[in-house]
């Protein structure tokens, strides 16, 4: 499979399958930055989850309502203070963490309101990104599809950076998957060979 050649829908499906694999059927799931609600719809159809999406973009909120997905138009940069502790089984943030400023707070809040968190993000240290920088340019790739001047991304980090932050925040990495840009799973030096990373996180036992 070459994920370059996948349609947007197929590409989404690839991400969704990876995330769905960590979500047991019938759970309560919070999806932060849920976009059009396609992931929650997929999880509700395939896993019968009770989903709640959070999204700030009005058009995406409308699309969620059309999709029959519960969505709250709330700015999560301000935290999740309205949500009760452990009111969800899983909190997901799929390729949206890099577009938010309050990184630490969001990660901490996800593991307050949910038992486990699923985080996926593009790896800025991926091989082709490194070579773009080595040639003097900011990287543009299927997982980082923006020019530097119009990117919604505000946090630029790598797998090892993310893992260091998790450690600092008392977050335990329970599972980790990395894929190159052809969609092939990589285990050898994922910080170099992984374009997209998926983490299953929990609170580190005291």
């Amino acid at each position, binding site marked *: 499979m070459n994920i370059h050649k996948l349609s947007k829908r197929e590409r989404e499906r690839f991400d969704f399958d990876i995330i769905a694999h960590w979500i047991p059927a019938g759970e*309560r799931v919070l999806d932060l930055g849920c976009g059009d609600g396609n992931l929650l719809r997929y999880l509700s159809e395939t896993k019968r989850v*009770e989903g*709640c999406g959070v999204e700030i973009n*009005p058009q995406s*909120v*409308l699309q*969620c*309502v*059309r999709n*029959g997905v*519960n*969505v*709250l*138009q*709330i700015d999560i940069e301000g935290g999740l203070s*309205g*949500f*009760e502790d452990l*009111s969800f089984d899983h909190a997901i943030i799929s390729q949206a963490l890099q577009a938010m400023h309050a990184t630490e707070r969001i990660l901490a809040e996800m593991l307050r309101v949910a038992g486990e968190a699923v985080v996926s993000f593009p790896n800025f240290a991926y091989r082709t990104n490194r070579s773009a920088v080595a040639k003097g340019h900011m990287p543009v790739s299927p997982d980082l599809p923006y020019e530097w001047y119009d990117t919604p991304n505000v946090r630029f980090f790598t797998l090892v950076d993310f893992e260091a932050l998790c450690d600092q925040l008392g977050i335990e990495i329970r599972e980790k998957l990395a894929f190159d840009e052809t969609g092939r799973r990589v285990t050898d030096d994922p910080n170099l060979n992984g374009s997209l990373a998926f983490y299953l996180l929990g609170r580190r036992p005291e």
Partner: protein
Amino acid sequence: MGVVAPQRFGSDAPLRLKSGVTLPAFELVYETYGTLNASRSNAVLVCHALSGNHHLAGVTADNPDEIGWWDNLIGPGKPLDTRRFFVVGVNNLGGCYGSTGPLSINPETGRRYGADFPLVLVEDWVQAQARLADHLGIETWAAVVGGSLGGMQALEWAMRFPDRLRHVIAIAATPKLTAQNIAFNEVARQAILSDTNFHGGHYAEYGVVPSNGLRLARMIGHITYLSDSQMGDKFGRQLSKGEYQFSYDVNFEVESYLRHQGSKFSAFFDANTYLTTTKALDYFDPAYDHDGDLSAALASARADFLIVSFTTDWRFSPARSREIVFALMKNRRRVSYANVDCDAGHDSFLLADPHYHAVLRAYFENIRL
């Protein structure tokens, strides 16, 4: 929507009001749009706000110029599509559009109730609406919808009759009024109460109306329905005669607008209804009986919810809608919440903002019948 005809429903069973007073019987005037389906699963109740009524859409035969107040939302092909839904509009108890209220004749005295009409609150309206639902053969509403005070009625339905509705759509609503909200209401009431034509609420017996007080009340209320930016855009400091008059006559366009709104309103609305309705707003606080815990108040609710607020609404701000949202989330209800960017303040809920109406349309389309 075309021509619609108001109908009357009479209930002979006594209605015990929240204030403790019992109303021996009452009548409600209502309109319906569309057709109730065979399984009676497509009925939608639309609750009105402070100055609204049962006439939601279309026109009536004897008043072809009076288009229903939510005509932009309700009708064939509109977001609340009457080809699919059976929509009911009702003038609330205590109203002045034909339902039993201060203008009705008190059977005990043979004269108009006037100020003797008991205070009717949101809970009482909903009880009366439930009697109408019984009369129409509607066991369960597909949805109960309302903006502002109408949204409070929709919330009350969800708490009081959890099995009798499947969806709540509460727009520009609040779980309770703030001190500032009550303060504005109190100034409006004082304007009416201090009008020399008020006569303790029995003005009808003197053949007068406290129109000056009502006019002031409406002017005050109207300011809270609009946003600062919208008033700025609409009027700014525009002068009606192009120059400063250095007098107390109308000089700024905004003065002219408010006076016009006030006069128009005071020509048809009943002052006692205005008074009692502002009190219904002030006293609505479902959390009051639960030590201030709104989620405890909403624990009985079973419906799914769509909550909508408007970014420029400072009367019932988006934060108030979010209180409702999170209280519902605590109860594990299915909730969607849209905070619509619309310039028109609290009154946005009456406008046909394309994004706002698209959200409502999408939500209605996903309601299973």
